[in-house]
Each structure stands twice: as structure tokens, then as C-alpha cells.
């Protein structure tokens, strides 16, 4: 009782050829939504991490609020935002960004906490100002943890972008949703495969970027 609305092969290459332009458009949409959301998430979480590191008392409330955001189901969050910002990309970006914050802040603060006390003391003793110490010692040494957070946040966001299909966006999620509605397997397979491939590409990109950014971690150990 396979619900083959259209008979023929499971995967229809002709469809891919016919819809190539649309695949390119949706790829662009998927990448843009991911990059914009993660980039805003990084900027916000860096700011909030600085606050958390500087004023320890702020760390608990920050993780509490971002943790609460993290627990809201994505569909519900999109719906909640509709009355405020409407049914558009802003809605998607706000929701997607809010999911990155907890992971990014946790990793950034943990990374900075992991900087050896002796390095901090030596930097102070050499005459670093607090700000210079943060940017030139603590942030570089926390990079492996920060990048680990960015990798998780990005892969998660690539997946979540598909859900924004309900807002009429969705990147590859557009194909998945339409495929589900029409029981057209080719669209579902294209949407899922490209989404997984995109997540993998981003992840590999960050692995490479980290190697390039932390030359000191290559030789030792």
C-alpha cells in the first residue's frame, strides 16, 4: 500500500534537473539563515560571556534564561513570535539565534575558566591590562572550547532551519515539507541529504578553521 502518487523510480533525477534553480535559491536561503543566526548568536554570547566572566553573579541568571529559551519547542517559538515580528525571516533568525546562546555561552565561559591560573598571573605580572589579557590571552586559549561550541550550535541550526519551512522559508526544509505534503520522495530525499551535507560541510570547515587558528595546539602532545 505504498502511496505512490506518481509511479516511477524512488528518486527522479529529472526533477532535480528541472528544479536546479530552485535548489540553488534554497541552498542560499539555508546558508544565509544559518550563518546570520549563528553569527548574531556568537556576538550576543560573547557579550554575555564577558558579562558572566566579569561579574560571576550574572552567570547563573544568564544560563537560566538561555536554558529556558533552549527548552521551548521550535514550532512553538516561531508561533509565539508571529504576533510580535510577523511571519518572516526576522522571526526565523530570532528563534534560531536564541537556540545557539546556551551552548555558545557555556562553552565560552568554560573555555575562559580553563585558562591556567599561572598564565593569568604571569600576564598580570608582565603588565597586561585587563582588557588586553582577555583578548590576547584568555580568548585565544579558550578558542578550542569556543569553536567546539560553535560547531554544535551550527550543526543544530542547520537542522532547525528546515523547521522554518512552516514560516514559508526553510531552505532545504521547503523541499521536505512539500515532499511530505505531496508524498513525493525525491523532494524529501533532496531536502534531507542536502541538509545533512551542509551540516557536515560547516563542521569540517570549523575543524579546519580551528587548526588554522590554533597553530600551537598542532605540534604539542
Amino acid at each position, binding site marked *: 500500500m505504498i502511496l505512490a502518487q506518481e509511479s516511477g523510480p524512488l528518486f527522479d533525477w529529472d526533477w532535480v534537473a528541472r528544479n536546479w534553480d530552485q535548489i540553488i535559491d534554497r541552498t542560499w536561503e539555508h546558508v544565509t539563515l544559518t550563518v546570520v543566526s549563528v553569527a548574531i548568536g556568537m556576538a550576543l554570547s560573547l557579550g554575555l560571556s564577558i558579562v558572566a566572566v566579569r561579574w560571576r553573579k550574572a552567570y547563573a541568571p544568564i544560563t537560566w534564561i538561555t536554558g529556558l529559551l533552549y527548552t521551548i519547542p521550535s514550532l512553538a517559538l516561531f508561533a509565539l513570535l508571529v504576533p510580535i515580528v510577523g511571519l518572516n525571516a526576522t522571526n526565523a533568525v530570532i528563534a534560531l539565534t536564541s537556540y545557539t546562546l546556551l551552548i555558545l555561552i557555556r562553552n565560552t565561559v568554560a573555555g575562559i575558566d580553563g585558562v591556567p591560573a599561572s*598564565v593569568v*598571573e*604571569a600576564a598580570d605580572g*608582565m603588565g597586561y591590562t585587563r582588557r588586553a589579557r582577555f583578548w590576547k590571552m584568555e580568548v585565544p*586559549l579558550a578558542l578550542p572550547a569556543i569553536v567546539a561550541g560553535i560547531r554544535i550550535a551550527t550543526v543544530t541550526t542547520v537542522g532547525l532551519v528546515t523547521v522554518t519551512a512552516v514560516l514559508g522559508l526553510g531552505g532545504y526544509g521547503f523541499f521536505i515539507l512539500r515532499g511530505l505534503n505531496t508524498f513525493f520522495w525525491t523532494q524529501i530525499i533532496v531536502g534531507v541529504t542536502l541538509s545533512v551535507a551542509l551540516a557536515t560541510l560547516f563542521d569540517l570547515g570549523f575543524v579546519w578553521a580551528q587548526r588554522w587558528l590554533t597553530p600551537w595546539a598542532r605540534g*604539542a602532545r
Partner: protein
Amino acid sequence: MIRLDNVTKMFTGGTRPAVDSLSLDVDRGDFVTLVGPSGCGKTTTLKMINRLIEPTSGRILINGQDALALPAYELRRSIGYVIQQIGLFPHRTVAQNIATVPLLLGWDRARIDERVGELVELVGLEPAMLTRYPPELSGGQQQRVGVARALAADPPVLLMDEPFGAVDPIVRKRLQQEFLQLQQRLGKTVVFVTHDIDEAVFMGTRTAILNMGGVLEQYDTPETILAKPANAFVENFLGGERGLKRLALRPVSQMGLERGPVVDVATTGDEALRVMDEHEVDWVGLVDGDRLLGWVDGSKLDGGDLRLLEPRPFLVSLDSQSSLREALDAVVTSHARVAVVVDDGVYKGMLDLEAIAEEITE
């Protein structure tokens, strides 16, 4: 050069001060060691000098200027700082680590490169190490980089917090000796914290012995402290073998050396017997010009040519820089009961137990 004037540090939540009304003067070129039991406030005292810890009350003057007059980071750039955990920056190469303070001071590239080159040589590192990262170096090498980094901008004052505490005892001894030689050339004003009294009296030109709460029990030359402890606390802290510790501080070169029962192989067996009689010993040392050949038992002397004898070498041979403690060790372990001193192959003379004991009890 550095003056602590009634300095007190009360940590928040503490019931009694970590340092209580401490006054201490450090002259230019002095190597002051701060020593005491844990909790005596020695590290707190050190860190108040470069304001890593701010005093609760009192004044600290560096070169006549109040330490509080400058922003803390500017003050610190003018003071070398070495800590036990070294604290090299793991994401920067050895060269970049050494260049830390010059970079903060905004020196130009060429001047920094030249200075880094000088320092690498000064502390005895291989130039090939400059491009490595700190985790690739051994503990001893890392500590040398730490010292080079502290000296980079040629600060007049150097603060050291148990700098050789984390390396193994053999490397520590070598680093101590090397650093003393370095200091003889550089003439920095050094404040050096340690919990090891032997290190304190070995390294310091002056030693400050602190009691709990930063109470200064005695501040004097190591020699004087060992010879005349100010009170029971100091005596107890110095521990046993004070005589030996004093001997360890004195180089052989301070003593007048006897030539001892020694004859040249160009002379005769009769001369050798006469020298033995004169010194009331049953052996004689043989030299060839100024070269020490060894010693022979009196019973081997047959009046023949001294060149035909086969002298036994002195097992332990000292030089002028050896300490009297090493000399004492040589005396008690040699058959002849003497310590011979040879500088670059030239025989200088010998010491016996009597001479060493006189030196320490005079």
C-alpha cells in the same frame, strides 16, 4: 631601591592580617631572599611590590617613588616577575613569550629581535628553540624562558616567587648556580621568595626570615643569621647543621691555602722524607711543576727517583669556587685527610680539618 614602610595586608574575610606592619629596605643590587613557614605572608609581601595584591595600609616605595603613583600595569612592566608555575603563554612561541614586555612597551621589531637574541644566549637556550611552543620544552628550559621573559625589558628590579620550586633537584641546583652567575653580571635588585632555608641562604646576599602574619624575625646576611640567630624561632627555622650551612656559603678562595706536604718530582726521595717529617704525615704529594700528580705512601719511598713512583690520584679535587662544605667532604673522604685545590690544572694548595674548623669557629 625598594622600601616597605609599615605595610599591612588584611584579606577580606580574614581574622588576622596576612602581613602585619612589615617594614623592609632592599638596597640597589641586593639579592634579598624572603623565607618562612607557609602562611608567613612571604608571597603576599612579594605580590604587594608589583601590586598583584594591593596593601591594606602602609607605603611601598620603589626607587623613591610610591608604587601607587603609577597605574598597576605600568608599574609591572618595569619590574621583572618570575613564578613557580612559570606561566609561559602556551599559544605563543618561545620568542614571542620572551618579547612579551617589549611588545607591551611598543618597541620596534628590530630592537625586539635583537634583544630576544641576546636573552636566549644569556640564559643558555638554543636559538633553534625560539620558534617552538612552550609545551614542547622541558621544565628546566621553560624556567629559563621564564627568566629571559622577566629580563626582557631590562628591569632594574626582579621579583621571583619560588622560581625553581617546580623542577627536579638536580636541575634546580644548576638553575640556582646559573642564575647567581647571571646576577653577578646583571646586578639586578632581586626579591626572591622561597620556603627552603638552604636555597634562601645560598642565593641571598641578605635574607629576611618571616614568621606567621608577616612578622620580620631577622633580616641580615645569611652568614650572620646562621652564626647569630636572633631568637629561638630563627634558630628553630634554620634547623640543624648550622655550621655546615655556614661552610656551604664560603668559597675556598676566601681561605689561605697551605702548600702542604708536597714535593716536586724533580727533587729527591730524601727531600720527600724531610717534608713528611716536617708535616708529621706518612704520605707525600707529588707535583710536576704546577701540576698535581697525586700522592704516595711514605713506605713506598726508597730514596730513588721520584719520577719512577706511581702516585695515587686525589679522588676529590676542588677549585677556588668550591665551598668549604665541599672541602670538608673531601677531607673526610680522602685517605690523606686533606682537600686539594686545583684551578684549571694548576695546583693551588690544600686544606685540612684543622684549617676548616678554625675558619668556622673564629
